């Protein structure tokens, strides 16, 4: 269903016009095998440019975090190469980290420090001067909607506010590359919008951003390109239009069975609107909708799995 050109497992996917100097990240043949033999990443290739945001989408355990942890130099790959703005991130991790702002998935904060102290001290640890760190801390606090919490100890903040502090720490010193591992997990919808705004602004300012998520909506709304990772492989990577345009059956019929009006929602895919309508007529469906396929449908078509965080429950008939 998906054209071969979107498959991201072959090294030939890398475009020759993309020189090392312009690539924020260049990953080639990345393999991570743990001691117990588990292959968390299997031959991943990816290139990210400045001013571009790539979302890595996949269910829990697909290998997203392992992939990002290797980019951030926290985890040593079994084989393959990672370059960050031309710097070999495996051989020179500290040099590579100078270029990055990182939000790990399960990082902790200092409960006794205030929000402002976090930003100022971590700004200093990123090499900023005291006055610059203070100024940037105030700007970030405002951008992240934490103004009322400026002098509050982080231990008194909600989980979502702490997550925003962690995202803010990654943004300090305006790094040219942001690596964000599920940056909005645990955030309420309005906080998520705030964080999306801050991330998109960084992209507009020229930063390259790679983030992992299991929120389809996040990938759809934020990304220039979406990479889909499943069982350790990057099975597709392209813009939303490219991914959607390659579905052979791009119309989705969602309906409830006639005799079970409170039951689960069923879904079928059709090549045309007319075909979908034909099914409605033949099945005498009264409660249904026909829509264009979404990223989630692409994801399902490629992986045969649904992402667990969707609100609706459904049975799928393809």
């Amino acid at each position, binding site marked *: 269903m998906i054209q071969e050109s979107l498959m991201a497992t072959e090294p030939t996917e890398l475009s020759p016009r993309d020189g090392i100097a312009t690539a924020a990240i260049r990953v080639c043949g990345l393999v991570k095998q743990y001691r117990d033999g588990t292959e968390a990443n299997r031959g991943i290739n990816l290139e990210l440019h400045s001013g571009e945001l790539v979302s890595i989408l996949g269910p829990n355990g697909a290998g997203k975090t392992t992939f990002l942890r290797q980019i*951030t*130099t*926290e*985890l*040593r790959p079994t084989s393959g190469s990672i370059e960050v703005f031309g710097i070999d991130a495996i051989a020179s*991790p*500290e*040099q590579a*980290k*100078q270029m*990055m*702002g*990182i*939000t*790990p998935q*399960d*990082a*902790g*904060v*200092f*409960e*006794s*420090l205030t929000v402002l*102290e976090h930003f100022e*001290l*971590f700004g*200093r*640890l*990123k*090499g900023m001067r005291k006055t610059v760190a203070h100024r940037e801390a105030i700007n970030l606090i405002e951008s992240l909607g934490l103004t009322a919490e400026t002098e509050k100890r982080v231990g008194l903040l909600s989980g979502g506010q702490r997550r925003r502090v*962690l995202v803010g*720490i*990654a943004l300090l010193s305006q790094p040219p590359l942001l690596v964000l591992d599920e940056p909005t997990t645990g955030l309420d919808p309005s906080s998520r919008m705030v964080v999306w705004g801050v991330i998109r602004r960084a992209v507009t300012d020229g930063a390259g951003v790679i983030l992992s998520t299991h929120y389809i909506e996040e990938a759809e709304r934020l990304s220039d390109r979406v990479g889909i990772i499943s069982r350790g492989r990057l099975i597709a990577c392209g813009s939303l239009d490219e991914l959607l345009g390659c579905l052979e059956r791009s119309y989705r019929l969602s309906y409830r069975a006639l005799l079970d009006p409170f039951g689960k929602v069923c879904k079928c895919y059709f090549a045309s609107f007319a075909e979908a309508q034909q099914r409605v007529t033949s099945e005498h469906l009264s409660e249904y909708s026909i829509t264009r396929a979404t990223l989630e449908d692409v994801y399902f078509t490629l992986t045969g799995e649904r992402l667990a965080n969707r609100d609706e429950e459904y049975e799928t008939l393809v």
Partner: protein
Amino acid sequence: MRRLSDILCVFRIQLISMRAEIGPFLLAALVFPSAMYLFAKAVSGSEATLPTQLRFLAGSIVFSLSLTSISWLGYLLLENRFTGRLKLFATLPLAPSSYICGFLLFAFVQASVATTTLLLVGKVFGVQVRPSLLSLALVVILTVLCLCGLGTVIAACARSFTEGSLLTDACGAGLVFLAPVYYPPEMMPRALRGASQILPTAFAADGVQAALSGSYAVGTQVIVLGLMSVFTLGFGFRLTNWRQN
């Protein structure tokens, strides 16, 4: 210059974090060691001689250093490791050695506050102390380095937070009570005598006692504690790595 700034930042983070923990610090660094001094003095009888009193005071200083360097510092390192704070440091272009050095600086500040206060406590209780400040500073610094090294190793090797905190607590107190810190080695049980004399706390207590009596003859203690510091800290630095395989 950047390295120094990094070390100072890590130190400041720990110092600010301590705002909420000042009570437990006073207990571990001052109240318990002072109480132990009084306890030892009471048990020894009313006619404790000056060398014996100096031994008790030296023992209490070493007890305080042990509790703050192994138990407290080890606990902080463990907390950072198991609550994800270490990951936050690992995201920065910060050398692991700067991170450890920030903690060491924090331990030195704690040690100087505790040692000075305990000397004042000794003075209040009538111990005539004429310390050789240079010897005292040297022995205290090396003791802190050596014990912090142990705390770092435990924090890096522990498989869980519970296991690590149990070990740091046990070592913090155990190294004082298993070594001839408050009492001369002859008073220790025969089976423990040999092993207890090679513990770092034993050398620390001997060195602090000598320094408190105004002696500069702390060469042996300085050399042994120095070697132990190199070994434990070297091992601790080696084990503290941002990167996993």
